[in-house]
């Protein structure tokens, strides 16, 4: 599944990294509002779904090689968050769906969780 397909499944808006959507394919995904959890449990090349919008989300994504970030339940990131994402080449999507539904729709389409992959 490419990030372009993720965008369509979640009817998401692209906030950064439009040009990367076709070439990025997450191996797995995780949904979390706790960055230390993300650091502890997320595999590389994963997609993060989160309600957090501050620049530390992008820092965390950079540290563990996340493939992209989806903001859920209509949250809009701070301008500094988008700026950092552009610099670090981390695509950002925004969906109106709440966390559970956004994760559920991706899972139904075959995107596995981080504990289910090698």
């Amino acid at each position, binding site marked *: 599944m490419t990030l372009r397909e993720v965008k369509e499944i979640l009817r998401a808006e692209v906030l950064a990294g439009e040009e990367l959507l076709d070439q990025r394919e997450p191996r797995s995904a995780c949904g979390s509002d706790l960055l230390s959890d993300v650091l502890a449990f997320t595999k590389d090349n994963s997609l993060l779904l989160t309600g957090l919008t501050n620049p530390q989300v992008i*820092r965390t994504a950079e540290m563990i090689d996340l493939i992209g970030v989806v903001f859920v339940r209509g949250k809009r990131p701070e301008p500094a968050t988008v700026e950092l994402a552009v610099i670090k080449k981390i695509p950002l999507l925004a969906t109106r769906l709440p966390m559970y539904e956004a994760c559920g729709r991706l899972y139904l389409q075959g995107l596995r969780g981080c504990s289910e992959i090698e």
Partner: protein
Amino acid sequence: MRDEKPLIEVERKIQGGDFQSAGDVSSELKRILQQVGFPAAFTRRVVIAAYEAEMNVVIHAWRGVFKARIFPRWIHIEVDDEGPGIADLELAFQEGYSTAPPHIREMGFGAGYGLSNMKKCSDRLEIDTRVGEGTKVVMDFFLGL
């Protein structure tokens, strides 16, 4: 091993409470480790531990100094801060325990995984802390362990 000369030495200041720059030091470290050519999985665990240590200074301390010595087969990191120190180290290592205030938790930190993440990612972790003075975190990472 003690007399070995590092390939690269990095020393950077960390400012407590500065969330705009928080992560800059770990980000720079990651770039350096990638340039040296360390395996991705090794780089990842070093960088996660470094980032947790850097964030701890930003969240809890007044200021700190981050030092990394990068050798061909291992990495030594010291993060020395002036700050409140840790009153109960055993408690601080418990997953889920945190003294971070609500505004830090709203940012997604302060879940109480910082120290356990550092322990998990490093091959050796030492913490020297004095209440009211500060905390020194020393970590070593060995390639191929």
